[in-house]
C-alpha cells in the first residue's frame, strides 16, 4: 500500500467521521464541531495533492533557492480554507446560541418547526 493512498484515505476517513457525527448529532454545539471536523478533511486532501516526491516546504529561508519544494498554491488555498472554517464555526455557534434562547434546547430534534 503506497503512502499516497494512506494520505487520501485519511482525508476520506476524517470526512466520513465528520459527516457521521453531524448526521447523528443530538446537540447543536456537537454538530457544529462535527462540521468543523468534516472540513478539516479538506486540509489533508489539499496538502496531499500538492505533495512532490522529495520536495521540501516552499519556504526558502536559509536554504538554497533552487531546491525542489512542494506546491505552494494548494498550501495558500488551505490557509483560505482555515479562515473560512473559523468564520463558519463562529457564525454557526452564534446561531446555536440564538436557537437556545428561543427554544430552550440544543437538541435539533426538539427544536420547534420554523414559523413564517
Amino acid at each position, binding site marked *: 500500500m503506497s503512502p499516497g493512498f494512506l494520505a487520501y484515505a485519511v482525508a476520506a476517513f476524517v470526512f466520513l467521521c465528520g459527516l457521521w457525527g453531524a448526521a447523528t448529532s443530538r446537540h447543536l454545539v456537537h454538530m457544529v464541531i462535527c462540521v468543523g471536523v468534516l472540513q478539516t478533511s479538506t486540509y489533508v486532501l489539499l496538502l496531499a495533492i500538492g505533495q512532490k516526491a522529495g520536495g521540501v516546504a516552499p*519556504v526558502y529561508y536559509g536554504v538554497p533557492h533552487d531546491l525542489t519544494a512542494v*506546491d505552494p498554491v494548494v498550501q495558500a488555498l488551505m*490557509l483560505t480554507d482555515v479562515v473560512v472554517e473559523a468564520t463558519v464555526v463562529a457564525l454557526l455557534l452564534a446561531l446555536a446560541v440564538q436557537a437556545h434562547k428561543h427554544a430552550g434546547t440544543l437538541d435539533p430534534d426538539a427544536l420547534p418547526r420554523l414559523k413564517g
Partner: protein
Amino acid sequence: MRTFLITAGAAGLAALLVWGLSGLPPFGSYPGPYGEVLNSFAVGERKATDVVSAVNFDYRAFDTMGEEFILFISVAGAALLLRKVEEEEHDSQEESESEDRQPGRAAPPTSDAIRAFGVALVGLTVLFGLYMISHGQTTPGGGFQGGVILATAPLSVYLAAEARTFQRIAPHDLVEWSESIAAAAYVVLGLAAVVGGAEFLRNVTPLGEEEKMGSSGNIFWLNLGVGVEVAGGFVLLLSVFIREALERRLRRESK
C-alpha cells in the same frame, strides 16, 4: 423508508468518493505548473522566502482581500445575531443567575495558578503574535495566524484578571475602529497601484532585502493590516460571545 434512504444515500456517497479519489493525481507527482513557476520566481521577484505568503498576499492578493472580508462580515454577522438576543432578554437578565457556569452552583474564585500563568502568558503571546505578523514573508506565518495569536492575549486576561482589566486593554470602540480601518487599508493599498497607473494590488512599496523584517513590499504591509484586522475581529467575536457574563462580572466588581 428511513433505512432505504440511508442505504441509498450511503451507496451514492461511497460511489462518489471512490470515483473522486480514483481521479486524484498519484501522491508525490502533482502536475500543476503554477507551483513550480512560483517556487522558482517568487524569491527573486518579491524577495519573499515564504512562497505561500507571496501567493496569498501578492500573486493572489485579490482573493485574499475576499477572504479578509469574509472574516469581517461573519464577525459583523455574529455580533448582530448575539446583540439582538441581548436586547430581547434584557428584562429577565437580572433575575437569571446563569453565568458561564451551571445554574445554582457558585462560581469558584479564579485560582492563583491561573492568575500567575495567565499574566505570564500575556507578554509572550503578544510578542509571538507580533513576530508572526511581521515575519510572514520570510518564514511560515503572517497576518491571519499572528492576528489570531494576538487575539488570545485579551482572552488570557479575561480568564486570569478582572473583567474591568479586559475592558481596559480591549475597549470595544477601539477594537471595532482598528478592525475596520485595517480592513479598509487593504483596499487603499490596492488602489494606490491603480492611481499610479498599474493593476489593482500590484506592488507599490520598496521590496527591501530578502530574509529581513519589512522586506517584500506589499506582502509585509498587507500582512500588518490583516494582522490588526484579524486580531480585532477575533477580540470582537470573543467579546460578543462573553458579553453577558462580562457585564454581570462588571456589575459584581463595581458593587
